[in-house]
């Protein structure tokens, strides 16, 4: 009988599967049901027994690669782990989350196994003829594709499926042995651009984008970069929003122009930046040019504040554009959010 494999991995605790992994489990269960196939779930985790608890009610065969070597996300050990799990499961389709950890290795794994891979997959449809949907040209063209070659590896974009949530319990896990090459790479830690300002929040409902207008000369002929920084950080703190930026604004540091010290290229949204997923997005002092807006593909409701009534956002790229001064509007928004915090929550 055909077998479908979902590959998952633990988060930095080493003993809990990531949300994106559990989303891939949902996609795997759906596909296995449609094809009448067996489902196997493979785990790469330091402590797979603990990680497997959430999969207890998945009715899947559970396989794991465990141990200290797999606490570190790195190519040589992760590729060997995924390869070993696959060899134990022998599947036609392999689904896995598009996480930094698996995106680093999965094409290499597919190659070792004589298979093929598609990444950034947003949907998997069909039963007999399985079809994957993904974007090309940085979210500007959408395509549905299929392949005859097997095994077919599909990396799923986070946020495209509900996370599997079963009754946790002690699960039966088959341990898979892996022969590792002598390690040449050691992961020494994580580094946030600025330890005290965590501005990128993937789980936030709102994306707040700051554009280059914030540090440009304003109608009074002056630059107000310091005030811009205070307004933006004030808003992020009050709202919990995630901070995105245009390329022009993050590039200013290297061009010697005024900068917002808490911004880095990691905040950049667009063609050569990120394509985050949030329910809502608010762009401020940003022109809404195509190379920027392609990064908004997965933002639901979109609003923008710009002084320019002909900016890109007005051309079908946002739902609402306020032609106004973002300094004035955001100052008032921050005051209102502060007031809201002080008011007692309405009783239900």
């Amino acid at each position, binding site marked *: 009988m055909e077998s479908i494999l979902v590959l998952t991995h633990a988060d930095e605790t080493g003993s809990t599967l990531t949300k994106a992994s559990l989303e891939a489990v949902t996609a795997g269960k759906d596909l296995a049901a449609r094809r009448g196939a067996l489902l196997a779930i493979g785990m790469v985790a330091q402590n797979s027994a603990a990680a497997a608890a959430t999969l207890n009610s998945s009715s899947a065969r559970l396989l794991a690669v465990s141990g200290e070597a797999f606490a570190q996300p790195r190519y040589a050990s992760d590729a060997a782990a995924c390869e070993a799990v696959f060899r134990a499961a022998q599947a036609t389709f392999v689904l896995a989350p598009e996480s930094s950890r698996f995106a680093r290795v999965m094409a290499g794994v597919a190659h070792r196994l004589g298979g093929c891979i598609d990444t950034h997959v947003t949907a998997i449809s069909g039963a007999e003829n399985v*079809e994957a949907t993904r974007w090309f040209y940085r979210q500007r063209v959408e395509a549905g594709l299929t392949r005859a070659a097997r095994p077919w590896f599909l990396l799923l974009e986070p946020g495209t499926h509900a996370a599997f949530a079963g009754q946790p319990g002690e699960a039966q896990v088959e341990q898979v042995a892996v022969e590792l090459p002598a390690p040449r790479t050691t992961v020494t830690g994580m580094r946030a651009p600025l330890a005290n300002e965590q501005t990128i929040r993937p789980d936030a409902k709102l994306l707040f984008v700051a554009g280059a207008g914030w540090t440009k000369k304003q109608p009074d002929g002056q630059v107000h970069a310091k005030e811009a920084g205070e307004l933006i950080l004030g808003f992020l703190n009050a709202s919990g929003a995630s901070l995105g930026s245009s390329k022009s604004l993050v590039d200013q540091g290297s061009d010697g122009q005024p900068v917002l010290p808490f911004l880095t290229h990691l905040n*950049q949204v667009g063609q050569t930046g990120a394509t985050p997923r949030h329910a809502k997005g608010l762009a401020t002092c940003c022109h809404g040019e195509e190379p920027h807006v392609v990064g908004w593909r997965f933002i639901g409701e979109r609003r923008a504040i710009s002084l320019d009534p002909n900016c890109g956002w007005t051309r079908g790229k946002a739902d609402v554009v306020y032609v106004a001064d973002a300094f004035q509007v955001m100052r008032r928004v921050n005051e209102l959010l502060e007031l809201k915090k002080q008011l007692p929550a309405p009783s239900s």
Partner: protein
Amino acid sequence: MTNSLHIVVCAGVVPDPLQTLEPVTGASGPGIKNEMVLPAVLDPWAASALCEAAHLIANNPESKLWLVLLGPKAKLQQVMMTVAQKVKFELVAIDGPIGGFADAHATAAALADAVNSIAGLDRSKFLLFGGWESASRGAGVTLQLVGERLGVTDQFQGVDRIELREDGSFEVLERVEGGKHQVSVCAGAPAVLGWATGNLPEPKNNPQIGMTNMRSIMPALQKAKTAALDGNGPRYVSVCLPKQQRTTRVVKDLAPDAIAQELVEWMGGQ
């Protein structure tokens, strides 16, 4: 401190991102309307890789830099007119199809063959660079596949910084979730680095570098091998532009106070 390095940067060419793209399906599958005549640029993240590579080469004497470039010959020539003025490199050109719909597995095979054919490439000094994702296919797999084909199993993706150490090892920063970098230390070459933006500004045009490069670029273009890139690729079922075009409400003449009220209501409970 010096380490001699042999860096190979793999890159493709893509339409200038300011161009409007319209998908079309022809006899050989999907493509972009008039892609051959749209102005093209060096794939942006691969351009970051080239710039970082040039910086490393400049700081480590006895090092060498090759650019393996795949695309239709005419397009390669056009892109070279600007790229050649930026940094000094030796070109290895592959005449191949343009666009994001070609299969990454076949592309990787052609690139790996080209790297293998480089005379004098020393594997003990070898770093394979490129963009972590292209601006056309955007799959983030090509470089990884080239690395596997060449047997290089220290690979890093979404790289923003590399710092070489005296003993030949290096520290590398890769983008991971939540706006953070994962920091790793690798024992040294050979390794694969798929670059994100990096840390360096785009080098200014230098006509002198352009002149030197051009002497070797023209023969390299003439010698370009043709890669057919067929094989066991995908079959496209549909290729279309996003359907979603929003009806924009443009609000003029509303006081900042009223806009703020409306926005706070719209945001709801965050």
